[in-house]
């Protein structure tokens, strides 16, 4: 290389979408917007400063107008943008900023910042969490004005004309709606988790993404050469020639591996001794059904429904929900689609919000608790699900059940929703399987009671492990203690599976554990009827299942239950299945605490 070599920087984030890409960075977010300078304006210059502010608002308005005009109709966020248009000229924002420039003789950026901080302090005190979150609308609008004031031209994402790796602080729905996605090789964002908008889009498009990098944007410049490894969550800036060669190789290996595994993805998952298991997919967007089909999913084991409720100023209507559900149900028919009712919780509802509403949202008002408290909201969704059920094979699943009465209440509401549809003369199907997520320890221990009320259990291992071991996975201090193979977890899973067998109901698993190759032998030994996972994980999982023997896994489980630590259980699995797993999984993924 002829230019001065810059040091290679390796960063670790969250692997939101698998794959490897190498390319030039393209920054779409300006960190400068956060830093607002303050300076005095001479009295004579005040009118000019006000004029500058007005011009910035005008530009912001034109930008919004252009986005609205260019947005495809199917994107439902256009009316949010219309509201933002109105906010731009709002007295309390626009008028007050101008007054502040006049009165305090400060620059427009600082005046706007002062006004916004004041407004946010009012929102901060609100108790209604939904209204409180509306502060984000004001933040969005003021950011837009600020960008125009600071003179930092907003990067026009729509104008990207070469294949690049998009680097942003965060990507909103409005941002992604502008991107010409064929031009994007991969995504890197500072904010967000696996369930972030960027992650979902990247997985749907099957391009690599690493999110939650925290400060990538300050380290990466446009045109920098970067490597994104969406399998491991690694991002490398200014890679050395040697690293480049290594990653080119890995990239090719991954592509070969992927092609290889996808070829046989439609072969059934039947163990060597003839036990058949359904391998289902977890999805979040209707668009993902394409991946489900491609990767050979036998149905949808978990359809997360939160997406339609996020990043918007009002909840979706029954028609809107029904349309989306019906799309998925029709495409998948006759395969089952398991629709999980709204699971609004801490990290999901907060993706794009600036204020935390609860001190401990994971233990707070979320999922079924929230829905039972908002019967109108809940019934709107239940009606939409029952109506979609008339078009295919639907199951309904309630999340975060922690007490028996919650199932009774939820089922009563489901009946009421059916009755109201009957009255309205709308086609629907109430004759669907009703199940619950088992993800709270209290539900595990009372599984015998719960089983009387439902047709199936679906074990959500991510939350169950977190609640059972009292481990916050996002907390780096304790994340290493998050162990799916912990003896406590194995006993809980076994208990749930046994109760389900005894009571004659089905038992599924839809957490990450179900899709992790080296957990599959243990999970199989428990006697799960179905596993559900990210579409991308299906081909490998099916391969692993085909190469093992159910009888052996039962013997393995018996041994595993005698172990005292997760490490011992892991070693047991490795000793028995290491070779098979190494053959079928992508290198580097086979380790403890994955």
């Amino acid at each position, binding site marked *: 290389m002829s230019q001065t070599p810059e040091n290679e920087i390796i960063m670790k984030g969250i692997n939101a979408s698998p794959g490897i890409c190498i390319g030039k960075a393209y920054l779409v977010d300006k960190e400068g917007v956060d830093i607002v300078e303050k300076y005095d304006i001479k009295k004579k210059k005040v009118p000019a400063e006000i004029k500058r502010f007005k011009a910035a608002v005008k530009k912001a308005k034109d930008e919004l107008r252009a986005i609205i005009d260019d947005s495809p109709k199917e994107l439902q966020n256009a*009316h*949010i943008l*219309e*509201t933002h248009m*109105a*906010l731009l000229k*709002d*007295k*309390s*924002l626009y*008028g007050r900023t101008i007054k502040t420039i006049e009165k305090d003789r400060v620059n427009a950026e600082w005046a706007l910042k002062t006004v916004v901080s004041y*407004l946010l302090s*009012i*929102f901060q005190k*609100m*108790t*209604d969490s*939904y*209204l*409180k979150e*509306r502060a984000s*609308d*004001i933040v969005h609008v003021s950011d837009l004005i600020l960008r125009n004031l600071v003179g930092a031209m907003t990067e026009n994402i729509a104008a990207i004309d070469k294949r690049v790796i998009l680097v942003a602080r965060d990507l909103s729905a409005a941002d992604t709606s502008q991107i010409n996605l064929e031009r994007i090789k991969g995504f890197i964002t500072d904010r967000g988790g696996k369930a972030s908008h960027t992650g979902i889009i990247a997985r749907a498009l099957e391009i690599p993404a690493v999110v939650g990098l925290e400060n990538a944007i300050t380290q990466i410049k446009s045109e920098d050469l970067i490597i994104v490894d969406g399998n491991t969550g690694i991002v490398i800036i200014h890679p050395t020639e040697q690293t480049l060669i290594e990653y080119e190789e890995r990239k090719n290996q991954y592509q070969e591996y992927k092609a290889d595994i996808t070829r046989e993805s439609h072969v059934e998952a039947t163990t060597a001794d003839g036990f058949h298991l359904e391998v289902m997919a977890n999805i979040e967007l209707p668009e993902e059904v394409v991946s489900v089909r491609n990767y050979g999913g036998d149905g949808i084991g978990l359809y997360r429904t939160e997406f339609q409720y996020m990043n918007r*100023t*009002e*909840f979706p*209507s029954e028609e809107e929900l029904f349309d989306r559900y019906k799309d998925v149900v029709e495409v998948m028919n006759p395969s089952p689609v398991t629709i999980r009712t709204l699971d609004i919780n801490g990290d999901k509802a907060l993706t794009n919000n600036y204020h935390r509403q609860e001190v401990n949202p994971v233990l707070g008002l979320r999922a079924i608790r929230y829905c039972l408290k*908002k019967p*109108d*909201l809940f019934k709107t969704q239940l009606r939409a699900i029952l109506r979609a059920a008339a078009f295919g094979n639907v199951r309904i699943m309630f999340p975060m059940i922690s007490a028996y009465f919650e199932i009774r209440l939820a089922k009563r509401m489901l009946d009421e929703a059916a009755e109201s549809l009957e009255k309205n003369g709308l086609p629907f199907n109430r004759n669907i399987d009703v199940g619950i997520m088992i993800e709270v320890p209290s539900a595990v221990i009372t599984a015998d009671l719960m089983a009387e009320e439902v047709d199936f259990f679906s074990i959500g291992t991510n939350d169950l492990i977190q609640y059972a071991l009292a481990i916050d996975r996002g907390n780096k201090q304790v994340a290493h203690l998050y162990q799916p193979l912990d003896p406590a977890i194995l006993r809980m899973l076994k208990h749930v599976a046994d109760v389900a067998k005894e009571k004659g109901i089905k038992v599924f698993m839809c957490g990450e554990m179900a899709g992790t190759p080296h957990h599959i032998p243990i999970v199989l030994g428990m006697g799960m009827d179905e596993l559900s996972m990210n579409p991308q994980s299906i081909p490998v999982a099916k391969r692993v299942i085909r190469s093992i023997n159910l009888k052996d896994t039962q013997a393995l489980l018996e041994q595993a239950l005698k172990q005292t630590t997760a490490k011992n259980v892991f070693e047991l699995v490795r000793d028995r299945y290491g070779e098979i797993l190494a053959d079928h999984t992508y290198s580097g993924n086979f380790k403890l605490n994955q």
Partner: protein
Amino acid sequence: MVSEEYVYREVMIRNELGMHARSAAKIAKLVQDSKAHVWVKKGDETADASSIVDILTLACEKGTTITIMIEDPSDIDILNAVAELVESGFGE
């Protein structure tokens, strides 16, 4: 305090989400042609009905009773239109 000179109507917020940005925008739009000020009052706090932000800062959840006041009696049609909009749950 509701002034005796003002004409006012009391209405209850009926939509599930309370008064959010889009509903506030609908009110602001209705009052943009009023002759004099139109106010929205919740408890002791008063907001300018022509400002979305001002209305939002009142934090009107579902079930909140608000008072809509006009300074000029000739804005009575606007008053009624706003009251009906709120009563209808903003058409949601």
